[in-house]
């Protein structure tokens, strides 16, 4: 293969001379983690609300929840991010006014977080709904029977169990979210994959740059996996959920 190996390239400086390549890769990791963390919070909060209302007895709420999930699940993530970045500011004058004068990276960051967060919220909502519906019917009835209101039944009986049950699928959604954050490079956000490609284009050491990015993604995924496994053990209900701490 005609390829000039150079594993020392990470310690070389960019053409501008203001930073070395490993430093900009690290900066990219920072953006990847920041986008993923904020989007994850949005996804978890909204996904929990949407998923919960889909299990209520109220028809309008169920319809709203279903519409939300169908909307965000049936449009590709990349298209959704383009909608947030290119289309939404054009139809909202105040947002447009902010976008025009704001720092470009701030706009990219915000739109990536919103796009990724809402996209993932639909997936989380599916998991939350499935988790609540997997509980025995008697749990809801028992909550009502001891005189709890609907809100209290959800708050004290259904949701605490449902959330524990769905930790494994939520873990894989978390991994997907981190991987999906790379799509933000299409609107110019300088996250990890963006930086790896940039490094490849400057140095022609694509192999080294992509290898570094690959290893970093694997490391992040493994860390997220460990954290979620720890959470799962901490909150496991003794004798109830398979795989819980013994």
């Amino acid at each position: 293969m005609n390829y000039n190996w150079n594993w020392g390239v990470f310690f070389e400086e960019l053409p501008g001379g203001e930073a070395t390549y490993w430093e900009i890769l690290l900066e990219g990791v920072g953006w990847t983690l920041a986008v993923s963390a904020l989007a994850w919070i949005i996804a978890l909060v909204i996904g929990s609300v949407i998923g919960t209302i889909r299990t209520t007895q109220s028809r309008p709420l169920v319809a709203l929840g279903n519409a939300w999930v169908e909307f965000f699940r049936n449009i590709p993530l990349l298209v959704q991010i383009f909608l947030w970045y290119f289309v939404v500011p054009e139809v909202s004058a105040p947002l447009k006014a902010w976008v025009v004068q704001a720092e470009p990276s701030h706009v990219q960051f915000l739109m990536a977080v919103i796009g990724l967060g809402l996209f993932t919220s639909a997936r989380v909502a599916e998991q939350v709904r499935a988790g609540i519906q997997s509980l025995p019917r008697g749990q809801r009835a028992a909550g009502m029977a001891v005189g709890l209101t609907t809100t209290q039944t959800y708050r004290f009986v259904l949701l605490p169990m449902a959330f524990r049950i769905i930790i494994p699928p939520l873990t894989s959604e978390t991994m997907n979210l981190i991987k999906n954050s790379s799509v933000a490079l299409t609107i110019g956000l300088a996250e990890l994959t963006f930086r790896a490609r940039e490094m490849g284009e400057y140095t022609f050491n694509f192999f080294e740059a992509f290898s570094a990015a690959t290893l970093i993604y694997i490391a992040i995924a493994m860390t997220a996996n460990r954290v979620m496994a720890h959470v799962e053990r901490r909150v496991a209900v003794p004798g109830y959920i398979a795989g819980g701490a013994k």
Partner: protein
Amino acid sequence: MDFDFDVIQRSLPYLWKGFQYTVQLTGIAALGGMVFGTFLALARLSSIKPLYLTAAGYVNLMRSIPLVLVLFWFFFLVPLILQAITGADRPPQVGAERTAIITFILFEAAYFAEIVRAGIQSISKGQVGAAYALGLTYGQAMRLVILPQAFRNMLPVLLTQTIILFQDTSLVYVISATDFLGAAAKIGQRDGRLVEMYTFVAVAYFFISFTLSYFVKQLQIKVAVIR
């Protein structure tokens, strides 16, 4: 804001071409991915250690890195590998469209492999025993007994994965291939009509994916009744 419907109508032939590529890419990647994925799944379930480890490593690697990065990897690697195979002086021009097809087959195979593995594992052990007792070889047992049942159980999941794949093919945008979204982006950038083009693409993707998901749900109910 003035929404210019005309730009969509004017560019329909070009968008149609892009859409055809999207469908073609989805179809080839789904078929290729299922075939390669089935072999990966069989390798992963095999008792031969090197075979099992290679397949598991491949699947786990593909599943832990973003598709965008995989596209970049292959865009860079495919010409170099072809050059190494053919012994040409310079890397051959492969083109983004063909690179995308190769990438998606190899990438999706990892996801299909996990589905097929779960499908095979859902078949009771007695079926394998029965097949061997009849004197079938491993290949015959898989082909005639296990896989037909497994695929029937897996069908809804495989189709759902294909719908996800259909949406994911829009990511070929990052290597500048002209798929449905790529065609819309090119026209939108040329005419300064990104709002119209991206809205149109979003609506089109939504209706197609929504309709397909609906049919998969119907199928799921049917299959579930049979079981």
